[in-house]
């Protein structure tokens, strides 16, 4: 009976942990863009709150530098609550961009005013070549709360597919096919009406 009770409590604890787990994710997890256009990912964090606020992060974002080129980033404002400025450092290299931010806000402000889920930064890449399901990976150098203590987080990597841009002839065939399909549907409807 006692063992059964402890087991049940353990399950509740696991469930509780999982419900409050901090997740770092690429958003959207997967997307497909045409070659030549830009593709943007949000670096999101979720599962904060309940006295845990993000004070700093230092994350490496990996990508296929044959397919993507990193041109720009914009930071969110949840570490700079009053938009008075904080420390932001971006260090790109081949296949990796290190994104580092330290809040200058007070511990109490971060804990009380920061959202539980928000976008840390939005990274924009330029597509270079075609490819399917190329991973966008996350690795954490450091993730700290408002007091500088480490935060454990699960990571959700993303992916991107770069597809070719359709040719003009293909567009014509598609329009023709679409027209024929529409014609057949229309004729089928007319037949059914005349039969009914």
């Amino acid at each position, binding site marked *: 009976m006692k063992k059964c009770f402890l087991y049940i409590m353990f399950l509740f604890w696991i469930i509780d942990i999982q419900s409050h787990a901090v997740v770092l994710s690429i958003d959207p997890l997967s997307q497909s863009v045409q070659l030549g256009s830009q593709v943007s990912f949000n670096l999101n964090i979720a599962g904060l709150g309940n006295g845990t606020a993000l*004070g*700093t*992060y*230092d994350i490496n974002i990996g990508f296929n530098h044959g397919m993507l080129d990193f041109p720009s980033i914009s930071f969110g404002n949840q570490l700079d609550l009053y938009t*008075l*400025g904080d*420390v932001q*450092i971006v260090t790109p290299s081949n296949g990796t961009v290190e994104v*580092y931010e*330290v*809040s*200058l*806000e*007070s*511990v109490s402000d971060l804990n009380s005013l920061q959202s539980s889920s928000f976008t840390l930064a939005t990274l924009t890449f330029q597509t270079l070549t075609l490819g399917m399901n190329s991973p966008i990976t996350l690795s954490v*150098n*450091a*993730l*700290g*709360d*408002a*007091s*500088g*203590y*480490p935060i454990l987080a699960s990571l959700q990597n993303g992916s991107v597919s770069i597809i070719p841009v359709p040719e003009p002839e293909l567009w014509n065939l598609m329009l023709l096919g679409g027209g024929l399909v529409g014609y057949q549907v229309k004729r089928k409807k007319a037949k059914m009406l005349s039969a009914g």
Partner: protein
Amino acid sequence: MFTKPFNVKRNVFALILVVFLPIFPITGKSCLVNFPMQTPATTLAKLSKDVYSETPQGADGYNFIFSYIGVNGLKMSVYHKIISPYINEHWFDNYMTYPCYGYDLDDYIIAIRGTYTKNGFLNKTAINNLLADSSFVTGQPNTNFRQYISDGVRFLQNTTRWIITRQLSKPPYNYSYYEYNYDEHRPNQYMITLTGHSLGGAIADVLGRASGMRTVIFDAPGPADLYQYLDNELASIPKRLVDFYSRDFYSNYFGSSYVIRMYGDAVSLSGTHFTDHFNGYSFQPYGTFTYNPPSPFSKALIDQSPGKYALALHDMNALISQMLTNAGSVSGVVGGTKLVVGANYIVPGTVSWLKTTANTFTTPISLALSYLYQIIFFDPPPGESYEFIEDAGSPFIRSISLPLLNGVAQWSLSYLLNGTWSDYLTLTSMDEYFFADGVTGIRFIPLDSNGNQVINNNSFTYAITFSNIGNINGKLNTVSNLMPTLSAQITGESLNQNMRIWNISLSNSGSGAAIAAQINGLSIKQTSGTPCTPVKVSPVSFPVTVGDIVSQSSEGIQVAIDFTGCSSAVEFSITINYSSNGGGINGSNTSHVAPALTNIIGDINGDGVVDIKDLNMLNTHLNKPSTSAGDPFDINNDGVINALDARKLTTFCTYSRCAVHS
């Protein structure tokens, strides 16, 4: 044909001598008179110096007897020595030896003090007495000089009366067969010589000329042009007997006058000496002798800048030394620059003089033809530091030469060039410093040989030349605020508790340079907390030299203190003692050090505060392992330097959002 009664005894003796001397020639020694023809000039020079002394000692066996001092400063001292040429001497002929009987000579020296100066260099009073008041240039004796002569005549009356009375009280002349003297009751012979240095020499010369007494004077201006105006003052001067039968031994040297001077002395070149009026056929001996200058001076050096050394070479000690060492002399007045006096009496290329009243020139040289390379002497009043600033439009100052005063070996000099005061430089006394064009002001502070400031309480003169033509107007000031104002403080520290480095800064907020500033000591006194004992690691002893600190600047040193064992709650008061300018400036400052004797977490740069500068420093070490335990970058001591340390650092920031405060 004989004016005196025939004396059989004397004439018989003469006949015997005439008849028998060729037969029995005297082969022995006779009692020849070998008195010195004159009192040695070196002795007179020593006595001319001795009369300056407040405790006269005499010289060369001449004893000080008494002095007179007049209300306006004239001092006359009487010295005396008995010269006995026959002591222990005998004369003899073919038959026997006889003692020499003779008369002693009482030699009296009357020395007159020149311009009184304690520091050996002509000061303001000296110059005024010697030049401005006596008007040797204008040739018109003024009230002061007339008073000097009147006093001198009165003193001379008293002195000669005393001498004659003294001589008459002596035993009568010891008559001897063998000497042809006609007066059997003649008192002992005596000799009077007047002497003096500088202004005293000039007065002696006038008195000697009027009385007929022999005079030997040293570095004295010539009073000959003044003499004709002094009949009233000299009317009652005791006249010396000039006939051949005078009781005065050296009557044939009536009015003899000697001028002895140093090459380059400016004073003795002013005025006109009596010797200038004599000629080669004059009955009276006379002469002017110019001694070679002593080292480090030389004739070439003096000729190059005659005005520069003019007053330095007026020193009596130097002249005596040159005379004693037979440094060589030439006849006549040669070498040096003539000292010209008077507000409106300027000759280009000569030395001139400006009088000051209340530190302001009252007599600008409006009639001067040119001031080019002309040396003008100013006379700053007593004070700590000095300043001369020209009015607009005055000629630029070309050079300056500052005197060698008692205890002053060098000077700290600043100059006003194009409206900006220069940093202080060091100028050796008597050296001439040449400025660039455009200098209109000078400031200078007397220093000793070690570079320490001397608080000079004596007036003095200094010489400047000008680089172009024009009227000079300006102000001569004694300024005390040229002194430096020092303060000490701890301006920075490093972090390590076991080797805390303090930067100690000495700041000079005053207008004058702090010369040879030093930290004399640093005391650490615990004021709160558990007792502990900080240890001074370096320097282990004080004083520590900081160096010269120019105005409105700072210099500093570092000290290292080991605070191991002291908790963060401990507080100390730190007292820093300092001084400069040879102790003329000294003081201390106390600051409190607390509670940060333990390391300030996050204060990576050790400036005492945690701010964005520290965070930026940490950001350059991201994602690296800490180098050691207690690595200041590893704020959370987890062995790695990363964003967690950065965020933790922000929680220790001294000001909100890690702002930097000055």
